[in-house]
Structures are given as C-alpha cells and as structure tokens.
C-alpha cells in the first residue's frame, strides 16, 4: 500500500496542497526573475497590484477569468465523461461565428437583452457543431478524440481565416474582421459590479458574459452531480466497463458530453466578441481554449475550483501584462514562462508533494 491510497481531509486536499503548489510555482518564478537581475518581491508586488490594485485592473482580471471559466468548464465536462477535449480553442473560435452572425442580424432591430439569448444559443450551437464531428468519430469509429479535436483546431482556424478575409470582412477595409456591432449586439459592461466595491471599471472590458459564466458553473455542477445524465457521464468517465454493464450507451453519452463541452467552449466567444471588441476578429480566442485545460486540471474539474483557477490565470494574464509594462526586462515571453511554471506545479506536478504531506499528516495526527 502506498501513500496514494491514504485519504486526506478535504481542507488539505483542496486547500493546503494547491496552495503549496502555488507557492512553489511562485518561488521558481521568483528565481527566474532574480536570474535576469530583477527583484522577485518587487515583481510580485507589481503583478498583484496590476491585477487587483484598481477597479480597472480587477475588471481586466475578471474579463480574462470569464473566458477561462467557459473553456475550463468545457474541458471539465468532457473529462467527467472520460474524454480529453483539446479542441476548446477551435470550438470557441467557431462559437464566435455563431455569436457574430446573431449579433450582425439582430443588432439593428432589438435591444441587447433580446439579442443575448439568441447569441448564447448561436455561440453554443456553433461550438457544439465543431465538437460534433470528433465526437461522432470517437463514438462510432473509435478515432481518438485528442487527435481529432487537435486537428479540428487547425480546420477551424483555416475556415475562420477564409471567412474573415473573404466573406465577413467589411468591403474596402484592410482588417480581417466584421463590422462593429451596434448596441443591440453588444453585451453591457459591468460598471455597477465594480462600483459596488467602490472601484471604477474604466476601460476594462468586463461585461455581462461574466454573469453568464457563473450561471454556467452552477448548471454544470447540477448536470454532473445532480442529474442522471451526469451520473452516466461520470460512470463512463471512470469505468467504461462498469458503464457497459449498467447499460449506459457509450456512443450516446460521448456525443452528448462532447456537444455540451463544445457548446460551453463556444459560449466563451460571447466575452471577447460581444462583450469587449463588439466585432468578430481574427484569432480572438488567443489561447484561452488551451488555458482552459490548465484551469480545469487545477480546479479538479469542479466548477468552484474552475472559478478559482480561472481567477488565478486572470491575475497572471492581467498582472503579467502590467508587470511587463513596468519592468521592461520582463518581457511578455517571461510572463508565459511564469504561467508555464504555475501550470507545471499546480497542474502537472499536482501530486508531487502529496506523499510528503501524507507522511507529515500521519505523524501529526499520531496514527
């Protein structure tokens, strides 16, 4: 029997261990900062102030976190059914098309709150459509979902390139993007949320989709732990043989899980497309789909964990941007290094410290 099978109390599992991992990640990031001749303490201070110091910083942090919540949920739902969806990036990209088409066709006629539900459905449908083919190939043909979803990231990227450069571009303009949506196709900013805490949102693009993301967290929690479908997904995800014994249809569950996963990824597009820039731009996803994998992993595939992990990555994105602005020797690439270290320690090396902590716990608890 190894330490892996020892059960730790929840506060250690979900509190102490992630926190220690994070401390380690920041320690090694500090070493990197120190190695290029800057003060790690000062860098950390700038990062935190940049992300959380003012209302605008918080607005940006929450804006990034919103995208990561959507993609994190997307990855988590698939993982619960035993599927590793690496295609959230592409699904979000195509979801942007769905949202943009709704906004472009409705923004002239109706206010935003009428457009919004259609845009949510449109983004989710397009995202789900992007996941449907890999899902079908997995369900019926056994083609590995990791491979097919990666491939679909490229396919989506090329398709969107083509559409934006050739079809959706505003005639006579150089930029490969759609026209700017009118107010009826934009999601309102959440000034009131920040001012509730006495801050000012300023130029930060935090918008209504943040609230949609929180609602989705709740719905995903209900789906996974309170519905029969979620029960079937979890059974399949943990033990495919037990699922077949229980009469849980493999192909059907794979399809449903992937469609939900793709839909959630697609909804991510609401945030940058309808919330921030009010138009569909090329490569607007910007890696949020991949960050979603780390977010889901760090958040233990649980909505609450995903919110916390998304906030952490929001802080790293926003604070990192401020940091590289204030400390020119810390370039954007350095920020990526730091993000990478966080993913490494909090995600990939999740269990590195566990045996030591188990032994310590056993000694202290005197067993």
């Amino acid at each position, binding site marked *: *029997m190894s330490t892996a*099978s*020892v*059960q730790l109390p929840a506060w250690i599992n979900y509190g102490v261990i992630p926190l220690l991992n994070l401390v380690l990640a920041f320690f090694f990031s500090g070493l990197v900062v120190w190695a290029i001749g800057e003060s790690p303490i000062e860098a950390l201070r700038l990062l935190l102030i940049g992300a959380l110091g003012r209302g605008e910083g918080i607005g940006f942090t929450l804006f990034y976190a919103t995208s990561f919540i959507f993609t994190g949920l997307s990855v988590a739902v698939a993982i619960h059914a035993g599927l590793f969806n690496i295609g959230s990036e592409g699904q979000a990209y195509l979801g942007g098309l769905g949202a943009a088409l709704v906004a472009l066709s409705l923004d002239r006629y109706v206010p935003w709150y009428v457009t919004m539900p259609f845009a949510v459905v449109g983004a989710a449908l397009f995202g789900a459509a992007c996941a449907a083919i890999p899902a079908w190939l997995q369900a019926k043909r056994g083609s590995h979902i990791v491979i097919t979803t990666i491939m679909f990231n490229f396919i989506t990227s090329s398709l969107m390139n083509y559409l934006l450069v050739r079809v959706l571009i505003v005639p006579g303009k150089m930029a490969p993007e759609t026209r700017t949506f009118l107010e009826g196709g934009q999601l309102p900013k959440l000034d009131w949320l920040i001012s509730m805490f006495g801050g000012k949102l300023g130029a930060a693009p935090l918008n209504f989709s943040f609230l949609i993301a929180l609602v989705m967290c709740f719905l995903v929690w209900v789906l996974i732990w*309170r*519905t*029969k*479908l*979620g*029960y*079937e997904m*979890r*059974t399949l995800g*943990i*033990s495919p*043989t*037990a699922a*077949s*014994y*229980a*009469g*849980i*249809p493999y192909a059907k569950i794979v399809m449903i899980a992937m469609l939900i996963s793709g839909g959630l990824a697609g909804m991510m597009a609401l945030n940058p497309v309808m919330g921030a820039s009010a138009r569909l731009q090329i490569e607007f996803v910007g890696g949020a789909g991949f960050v979603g994998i780390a977010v889901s992993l760090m958040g233990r595939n649980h909505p609450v964990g995903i919110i916390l992990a998304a906030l952490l990555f929001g802080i790293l994105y926003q604070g990192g941007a401020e940091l590289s602005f204030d400390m020119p020797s810390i370039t954007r690439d350095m920020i990526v290094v730091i993000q990478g270290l966080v993913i490494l320690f909090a995600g990939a090396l999740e269990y590195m410290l566990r045996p030591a902590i188990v032994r310590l716990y*056993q000694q202290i608890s005197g*067993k």
Partner: protein
Amino acid sequence: MSLDLPKEIEPAIELVGIDKKFGAVHANKNINLTVAKGSIHGIIGENGAGKSTLMSILYGFYHADHGEIRISGKPISIRDSQAAIAAGIGMVHQHFMLVENFTVLENVMLGAEGGQLLRKGVASARKELKHLEDDYGLEVDPDAVVEELPVGSQQRVEILKALYRGAEILILDEPTGVLTPAEADHLFKVLRVLRDQGKTIILITHKLREIMAITDTVSVMRRGEMVATRKTSETTVEELAELMVGRRVLLHVEKGDANPGRVLLSVRNLSVKDARGVTMVDNVSFDVRAGEIVGIAGVAGNGQSELLEAIAGIRKPASGEIFIDGNPVAGIDPAGLRDLGLAHIPEDRHHMGLVLKFEEYENSILGYHRDQRYGRGAMLDLDAMRKDAEEKIAKYDIRPPNPRLKTANFSGGNQQKIVVAREIERDPNVLIIGQPTRGVDIGAIEFIHKRIIDMRDAGKAVLLVSVELDEIRSLSDRILVMFAGKVVGEKTGDAGEQTLGLMMAGIAA
C-alpha cells in the same frame, strides 16, 4: 507463537517480531514465524489478514517498521526484491510476471542475462534450464513462446525462473487459482519433489483443502496477527476455518431440495465471438427453471465469461437466441434486460459491478439509476439514494455502514455485498452470477451463499458461473461443464469432483 521444531531441523526462515502499519491500518502485528528447511509451510487467512503484506516484506516490496528477518539463522536486511533473490528467495505471483511473447528460455533468463551480448548467456542458460527440468520434473519446451503455453505450464516457467536465480525458498501466492484440478495435482507433485530435494516452500492460499493435501505445517493469520501454527497432520479443516474467522463457520451450504418450475431463462444455439473474432461460446443451449440453481463449471477462459456477458446484454451474440420467460431478448441492452427482470452479479466487481471511485450509495443504484424512485425525470434524488443505500447496508450488514464512504475503501467481501444487495434487492426473476465469492472472506461467503439459496427458494432462476468447483458443487442443483466454448456435459449437483475435473479438462464427457 513458533512451532517447537526438533533440534536437528534447521530453520530456513525466521521472522521475529515483524510489525508493519499503513497509516491507521495495522497490517502485521508482531509476527513471529519459523519455517523449517525442506518443508512446505502453508499460510492461510482471510483477505486483509496480512498474508500478502508479510510476504511482501519478505520479498522486499515493503519494509517492516520493526522486526528481524533471519535466513538460515543469519539476520539480513531485505531492501528490495534484488536482495531477496540474492538471499535465495523466489516468488511465484498469483498473476504471472512473464513476457508473453518471449520464449520460455528468454523469460527464464530475463534479468540474469549475464553480460552485454546474449549468445553466451543463452547457451549456458539452456544447459542450466535442462538441468532444472530434469531435477525437478518441470518439463517445459524451452523454445515455446509463453503465450502459447497452457496456464499450468506458464506457472512452471515462473517456478523455473525462481529456481534459475538460485532460489532455496519459494513463495507461492494462491498458485492454484487458475489451474484445473489435474494441473493443480501436477503442481503439488512438483512441490513435493522440490521439498524432497531440500527446497523450502511457503504456500499462501485460502483453500483449506490444499493446505490439508500438501503442507507439512500451517500458520493461520487473522487481522494482522499470527494466531496459530499447527502441524498439518494434527489439525482439521474445521479447526483451521475457525481459527481464520474467529468463530465457527458452516463450511457446507445447507439447502433443501430444488423445486423446479417453468423455464425462466432459455439459451438456444448461442455462439459468441470475442473482439478478435475468435469463437468463445460455441453453439450452447440450456434452460434454467424457476426455483433451481444451474452451475456452470469450467476452468477460467473456456467461454463462461462471454456466455454470462451475452446473456446480460453486454456482448452481442454472433448467433442463437436467448429467452427470458419465453420472450426473445438477444440484442436487448443491459438496461432493457433489467426491466425484463434480469439481474446480473458480474464476475469482476472492480471493473464491472462497481465504480470504485464512487461513494457507496452511488454504486448501490448502478444500472438502476434511471429508476424514478431515485429521482424524478432527469434529476437524481440524493436523499432517496442514500436512504435506499442505508437500508441495504443494514440488511446485508455491509461494513463500515457508511453510504458516503468511497467504494474502494471497503474490503472485498463488503464490496461484493454491495453488488449482491443491489442486484438481489430488485427481486429479479432471473439472476445470473459470475464468481460470487472471488476474493471474499469466509464469513461473507457464507452470507452470499445463503442469499443465493434464498433466491432459489423464492422461485427464481439462478445461473451460477464459478471457477471454484467446491462452490459450484455445493450450490448447484444441476451442473453444466464448459470446455473450449462448448457445454461438454451435464451432471446433477452431487456429481463427484473427479468426474467434473476430467470434464473440465476436456477429457471425458
């Protein structure tokens, strides 16, 4: 509690005060054990009694917290399995550690090739292997590929491997679990030869009959303690069983006469293929009536698993028909079959019957989770699930009685009770069961057997598959023997072991 050995017999192994804890679990409590050189020493105990831990300490997988190991009188420290091999200890695992697509010779050499280039090592290994085979009657073709050998021969390769490394002490962990009675007899012959040539053998098993048949001395473990050591000739099966469980055990299942009614399960000309297209079940037909238990005997791998899975709807039959209460059901999925009154206790509770990472109450609805009693419409009603689980826990004495505990943390016997409770409490008309007591301790075996008999007496049709011939014989009203995918014969429940053994080996019909 060591045995008083005559002075002239030297001990091969002495364990003195071995103590091992895993967290809160005290797996070995101050174990003292002396095994005489040139003897066969049995170690028995229920699951979780600490046998495997003790042997793992002896073989260097774990380190004892306290205590000393002496080999031939000298205290040594066994840090890892390399050190164990160097000390002359060889282990034959329950699941063979062989490279299946290597030849016998290559497997025997593995890890002891002798130098960077193979050729010289191969020649000397071949000579050495020939020696061993001649000395101990362990005939195996050195150039045969292991995966093409029958299980009994593969086990011989494992033994040869240990001997090739100079083992003086052989530990065998549940060696007969996968063997036919004839193969087991052959193994025992080999073990006797090894003993007579001066090797020391430790046999770990839960089969009391084997202990009686082959060992010289036997030690009983219970809850981490060594509770008794006896000369085999001076003890009885009843005494050993009582020592193992700590109370008197009914070894024989008590059941009245069967009262068969109408046919509830009927299988006609059923053939099933596995994923590679190999026919595993070959044109099998039989009936199971209400109020009778039909046992299917056979050595593992002769199609019983596939037969069960086909009837349960998990595996699609290649041809043939299955009827439940007269209705054709081949092709209906497991969920549909449950609605028709079929319940299935699968062979492999770890991979099929349970989701080990689930909490207990989640597993107690597996397969029936769509039922409205566990929640209306698409939702799950956790309170209803837990209440239902608590009722089953109370009725089946599942321990610990905590529906929120992760299923993996229950013992094997209690895990099996979770499955048995779930399937039997649905009051099915047809119950199909695979290996109901594999890895289950004696106390729980008694309980599960009683439940199965109760089902029969309540007028249900029960189909039982087990590789434990004793279990088949004590429970079944009729016995079908499967060999190579075919039903090769039918006997009444009181058929002799020898007759069945020969049929299982495909020799007699």
